[in-house]
Each structure stands twice: as C-alpha cells, then as structure tokens.
C-alpha cells in the first residue's frame, strides 16, 4: 500500500490549520481510511487538544525521531476510530530538533500501512514549515477570506511551487456568506481570482467549531454543523470523489427575497 502524505499549511497563523487537520483526519477515518495525523508544530502542541487526545500522550514526534521510542508505541489511537492515530508534537523542544529528512523517513514508513498521513504544519515559512513540506505528496493551503491571510497564502504558494510540491489546493475557512452577500467580505470567487489555486473546500463560519474545540470533539462529528459537513466534503474530494460545493446561501433574508420576487426570479 502506498499511502498519501498531505500537508496542511497556511503561512499565517490562526486561520484554522489545526482544526482542518483534525477534521480531515476524522472524516477520512469515518470514510474507512487508515489515517495518521502528525502535529509538526514542535513547541506549540495543539492538535492533541483539538482531537481530545491530550491525556493519552506518552511519547512525541521528537522521541520517535531521536530513537527514544518506537513509532508504533508512540502513536495515539483515537477514541472513536480504530484506524485513526495521532503523533503529537514535542512541547519542550524547538523546531530544529527535527529535520526535513527525518520527516521523509518517518512518513515513508507510515505510507506502507496507512492510506493518509496528514501533517499539520506550523505557521511561518521557516524550519517547521520546511519539515512539513518536504515529505508532502500534496499540500492543502488554508486561508480566510481576508487580506493578510490571502497574502500569506500567496507567499506560501510560491514556496510550495518552488519546492516542486505544487500546485496546492485551497481551503477557504471561516467564510461568512451574509457578509459576502453584502459585499463586505471577499467571496470564494474573489480568492480564486487572486490566488489562481483550485479550491478543495469552502468552510462557512460556524459557532459549533468553537464548541467542538472546547469539548475536544471535532466538528465533523456533529451532524448539525455546516462547517462539519463542509470538512467532510473536503475529505471526500481528497479521496478523488467529485462532490458539489454546498449552497451556503440557502437562507435568503427578507430583502433578498423581495429583490428576487421583484426581479421575477
């Protein structure tokens, strides 16, 4: 079996990389795939809490790379899914503790037994990003419809292409359809025009994402959540399925309905 290594990056911090990684891991596992998620953000461990696995950590990525623990015994199995595992970041070391070559070696071993290896890249364009990029077969770039996030996404896209890992595909996270409708937020089409990258997912802003991270149960497990559904669609597209984009504007306000009525639509 030749699994696929997918790196989730963004350039800018706080756009939802870790949330995206956790949810894609869960979604892929619920599709019956064997999945390992790796937190490559050494020193700022986060993927464990988002996935609700923080209490089970014994060994971490640096322990594996430095040979203090065996790979299999260091992987933390998810509570719900038999075939979903986490390799947590070390909390007390820095990014220099791991090299891009270490990551290639590690993922090559995981590729043998798993369908997907997801790497949660740290923000920035330095060593941690290089570590996450080097083993990637494909890169997903998470951005928000907002100037600084899109600018950083463009910067990272250039670096991804320069490393022959491109073109990446785009996850537009935290889109607010009502603001887009008012012209007060970049639309997904705008972001596509600016970056020229294929879009693999559009995730609407959803309060349930915060509840999910509060409780450590990723939002894609919540059937009521639009963001959860959207992440699930990203996972299916990642497996090659052709999934149409959700209609995020199915709740037109009074004004919109009036306009549509008067326009005979």
């Amino acid at each position: 079996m030749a699994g696929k290594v997918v790196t989730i990056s963004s350039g800018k911090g706080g756009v939802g990389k870790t949330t995206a990684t956790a949810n894609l891991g869960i979604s892929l596992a619920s599709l019956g795939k064997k999945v390992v998620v790796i937190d490559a953000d050494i020193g700022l461990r986060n993927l464990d809490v988002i996935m609700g696995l923080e209490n089970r950590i014994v060994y971490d990525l640096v322990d594996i790379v430095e040979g203090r623990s065996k790979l299999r015994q260091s992987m933390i199995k998810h509570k719900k899914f038999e075939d979903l595992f986490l390799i947590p970041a070390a909390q007390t070391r820095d990014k220099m503790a791991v090299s891009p070559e270490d990551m290639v070696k590690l993922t090559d071993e995981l590729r043998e037994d798993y369908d997907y290896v997801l790497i949660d890249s740290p923000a920035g364009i330095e060593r941690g990003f290089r570590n996450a990029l080097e083993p990637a077969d494909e890169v997903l770039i998470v951005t928000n419809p907002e100037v600084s996030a899109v600018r950083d996404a463009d910067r990272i896209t250039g670096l991804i292409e320069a490393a022959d890992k491109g073109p990446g595909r785009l996850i537009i996270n935290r889109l607010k359809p009502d603001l887009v409708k008012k012209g007060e937020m970049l639309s997904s089409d705008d972001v596509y025009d600016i970056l020229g990258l294929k879009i693999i997912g559009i995730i609407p802003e959803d309060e349930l994402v915060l509840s999910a991270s509060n409780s450590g149960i990723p939002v894609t497990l919540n059937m009521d959540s639009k963001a959860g559904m959207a992440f699930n669609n990203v996972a299916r597209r990642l497996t090659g399925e052709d999934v149409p984009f959700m209609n995020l504007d199915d709740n037109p306000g009074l004004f919109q309905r009036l306009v549509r009525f008067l326009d005979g639509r």
Partner: protein
Amino acid sequence: MTSLLNRLFGRTKRGSGATAKNRLHFVLQHDRINLPPERAEEMKKEILAVIVKYLAVDQERVEIALEQRDRMHSKLVAELPIVNETYKSENLKPEPVATVATDAGSNGAGKVNEGEPEDASAEDAEEDDKEPVADKSDEDSSKDDDKR
C-alpha cells in the same frame, strides 16, 4: 430594479470586499516579483530619464505598469507616446508609440527587451516611404511650395 432597491436601502454591491480585492491584487503584484511599490516608482523614473535622453516623450501620457497573468508570469508594460515634431508639422500620421515590454519570468528579475518587433518594423516602413532624414526640411518646404 435591483440597483434601485440597492440604492434605496443604501446597499452598494461594491463594499469593502471589493477594496480588499483591489488591494490584494496590487500588493501581490509587487510581492511576487519582490519589488516594493516604492522601488518600482524609482525604477519608472530612471527608465523615463534614460528614454527622454533620446526621444521627446509626452510625459503627461506616459504609462509604465506591471501586468500579471498569474504567479509565474509578470511583465512590465510601458507606453511612452513620442512627441514627433516632424509628423506634427506635416499632419501626416498619428504619433507612433514606443512600447517596451519586459518579461519578469519565473525568477522575478526583469530584463529589458527591445521594443515590440511589430511596432518597430511598422515604424521602419513608414520611414522608408519618405526621403532621407537629412533632406527633410528641404523636402517639406518644397512640398509646401507645390501646394501653394
């Protein structure tokens, strides 16, 4: 109808989202070739300073702009209308326009090309139709004489 309603309710289609898009287009143009706007302005001034040494350029109508198809394909396009006193006095042709295209390419560094070949040859052809430049003033006066 829609636009009327939009106006009535104070809703314009082009809000701050459109501003965001325009600002991003501008900033990414410069990011992608690693040439900040300030430096680009300096460069334009220098280019112009060189050209005016050789040609009378209508400085009011000069346009030197970055154009970008995508991340890997940028070019510098310059439109430098030439004030040609010879043509003006004869009322023959519209002013020719010198075009300088510079391909930034994937490495981001610019190299200045020759003017566009089509334009250059067209101008040559026009020149060929006339007498040698040295004789021009005489030619002009004789023509004027004929008309009278």
